[in-house]
């Protein structure tokens, strides 16, 4: 850890920003989020460190890009400061130029690297015709099969992969009161083996009669709620 006096342009300090991206803002892409944060940092007036060279910009490193449509309570962004400012003040300044749907939860000095992230946890709520305890059983059965072969779009075209080993834990229940199917899933989130929660949706759509009719009567939401280390248990900070 650097002492406040030592922090300078030559010796910038890393800080980690934990933020939420929820509500309608789940429809904002990662690229747009990056552009937004570049401006947020300027208007917050925090002493961000800028890259040198032809086109100076604040250095922003995001932990795990979120796909369009997914909300999160645990996004992480690392930036550098060229001058000391307390984490509390950074948080306060950022929140004063943000909105509820995109707001900072915590600011701290990081003690880990994003490469250490092993898993991400998601809460998925599904409103679908015929939601029931039976349907929850069927979903459970679907995801306890081995292998679970699925097609994945990659840069080199369609590729068949087995997603079973990428699912760490998966709990399914039927919430009778809200008439919802609730999934709670911990999925691999390393850079080599990132399993998007949308893949679970696709698997269910393909194999079970779920989310197959009209978008107004059948719908789902996904919330990323936590990040874990490679053991799938210890929270990544």
């Amino acid at each position, binding site marked *: 850890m650097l002492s406040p006096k030592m922090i300078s342009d030559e010796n910038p300090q890393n800080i980690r920003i934990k933020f939420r991206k929820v*509500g*309608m*803002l789940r*429809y*904002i*892409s990662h690229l*747009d*989020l990056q*552009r*937004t944060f*570049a*401006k*947020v*940092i*300027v*208007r*917050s*007036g925090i002493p961000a460190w*800028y890259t040198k060279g032809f*086109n*100076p*910009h604040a250095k922003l490193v995001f932990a795990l890009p979120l796909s*369009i*449509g997914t909300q999160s309570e645990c996004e992480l962004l690392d930036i550098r400061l060229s001058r000391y400012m307390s984490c509390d003040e950074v948080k306060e300044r950022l929140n004063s*130029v*943000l*909105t509820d*749907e995109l707001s900072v939860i915590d600011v701290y000095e990081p003690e880990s690297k994003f490469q250490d992230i092993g898993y991400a946890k998601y809460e998925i709520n599904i409103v679908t015709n015929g939601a029931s305890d039976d349907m929850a059983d069927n979903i459970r059965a679907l995801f306890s099969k081995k292998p679970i072969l699925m097609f994945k779009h990659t840069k080199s075209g369609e590729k068949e992969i087995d997603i079973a080993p990428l699912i760490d834990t998966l709990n399914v229940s039927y919430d009778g009161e809200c008439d919802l199917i609730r999934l709670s899933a911990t999925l691999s989130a390393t850079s080599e083996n990132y399993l998007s929660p949308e893949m679970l949706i696709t698997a269910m759509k393909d194999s079970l009669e779920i989310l197959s009719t009209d*978008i*107004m009567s059948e*719908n789902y939401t996904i919330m990323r709620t936590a990040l874990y280390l490679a053991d799938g248990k210890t929270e990544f900070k």
Partner: protein
Amino acid sequence: MSRNYRERLDNVLRAVQKPGRYCGGEYGQTLKDKEKVKARFAFCFPDSYEIGMSNLGIRILYGVLNREDDIWCERAYAPWPDMEEMMKKYDIPLTAAESGDPLSEFDIIGFTLQYEMCYTNVLNMLKLSGLPLRAEDRGDDMPIVIGGGPCSYNAEPVADFFDCFSIGEGEEALVEFTKLYIKMKEEGRYTKKDFLLEAAKTIGGIYVPSFYDVTYNENGTIKAYTPIYDDIPKKITKRIMKDMDKSYFPDKLVMPYIETVQDRIMLEVYRGCIRGCRFCQAGIIYRPVREKTPAVLCRQAKCLYENTGYDEISLSSLSISDYSQIQDLTTKLLEWTNENKVSLSLPSLRVDSFTKELMDKIATVRSSSLTFAPEAGTQRLRDVINKNVFEDDLMRAVNVAFDAGKTQVKLYFMNGLPTETSEDLEGIAKLATNVVNEYYRNPNRRKGKSPQVTISVACFVPKPFTPFQWETQDTLEEFEEKIEYLGDCVTDRKVRYTHHDPRTSRIEAVLARGDRRLGKALEIACEEGFRFDAWEEYFDYDKWISVIEKAGLDASFYANRRRDDDEIFPWDIIDCGVTKEFLMRERNNAYLGKTTPSCREKCSACGANTLGGERSCCPQK
């Protein structure tokens, strides 16, 4: 109710392209308690979110209206056709971005009319709001629909659909209008008709089309506009802000999450234009020039930078290098922009005032291309249109660009201008080739790189309130022939040739100088599902011609007819400050090939000085 709409909107967003257009929640938007405000104003931009969010006028008026405690101004944009389909399928009305409430619940709906081809979007937005299209069919319990923007200077084709228009600069007029609405509601004497009548009588620049009877001659031209009340103006004089230094300029902006067309600070340096290009409507209707001072501009720019975080400031005005204090302004801005890594950019450049000093200060360095607009290919024709630009100026300007390592130059031209001959078209190709040759002659050019000169050729559209308002437009066949001929003239492989679609320009010409009878055609167009006609992929020429015919009208009456000197125009009801006599004088000078000096060199007595204005170059009235 509205919560429900939000939810339904939310559900469909997963199924549309670019959902970020509809999700709202931008930082910098104004939220108020709808129970506490006295009037709700929906400011509509009849095109996509990306274009609407880029409009400087809306940024200003949104701030002006929301500065008033009792008014809440929100925004709405035209939903893209994929979204429109979803809205229709799931019965979701058009809603405002801030509250998510349907437009039909608002007190006042304002549309800005920036270009004629957006008219079908205006009608479609009314339709998607569940409101009757025609003003006469909307009752006292429905929103008042008001229009503004450059097309309101001849809004006759859409006159039947609007309750009124605000002519000229709306900063004061819209507030007065909304306040009057509040007052009459509070006093319990509001009826739509009484309100409009009082507005027409007491608020400058308010034009209520239904208060004027229009009669036509047998040949289809206008016979007379007759006010149906004695105490309303015979002509509606446009409003202007007299002192731009004191005029409201926003100190914060609604910040889009998705990328928009003008995703930067737009600093309005001055209004009006000292030139007088004879085809240009903006150069006339925004007269007189009114400048802001550099100190005020710097303060406004810095404030916006701090409140938005944008790293680019665009100096936006009609012809920015004509600003009398451009050096002082750029020097002052650079004092803090450099340090804060903010770049400056200039949207429009005139070749005669484009210098190395200016170029060094602006950010166009980022792109390798520069744009100039000689508009015509020969000096003769440039004199006719009063584009006081000489080939030498252009060559000097491109050399400044080449010296700085640029390799690409874009040149804008127009075809179909009055008096144009094949020589003028050849001149366009020659000018482009000369620019290419100039590149190879420049010793400081980027070595080992070949130049690219793009010529982009638009089709001339005669516009109201220009010296060419009496002129005919070329027919489609003439345009097509010219476009092909020019294509044949371009033989240099370093020259890239692009041109506009003359069919769009023809419909634009019909609407630009249209009269009220065209309302019928637009109504049919709306019924037939027209929208986004400014977008090539949705524009269908044959269908346009067919709706014009179904309305019993003939496109060539509007586009291809030379008007008599004493013809009464539909837009004669509007007084934009510049007299018809001046425009006629300019038209005659065009035919003599006589140029008119800029307002800074010499006043040509256009009449705009009667409107007043600080830091203009007009003589006192």
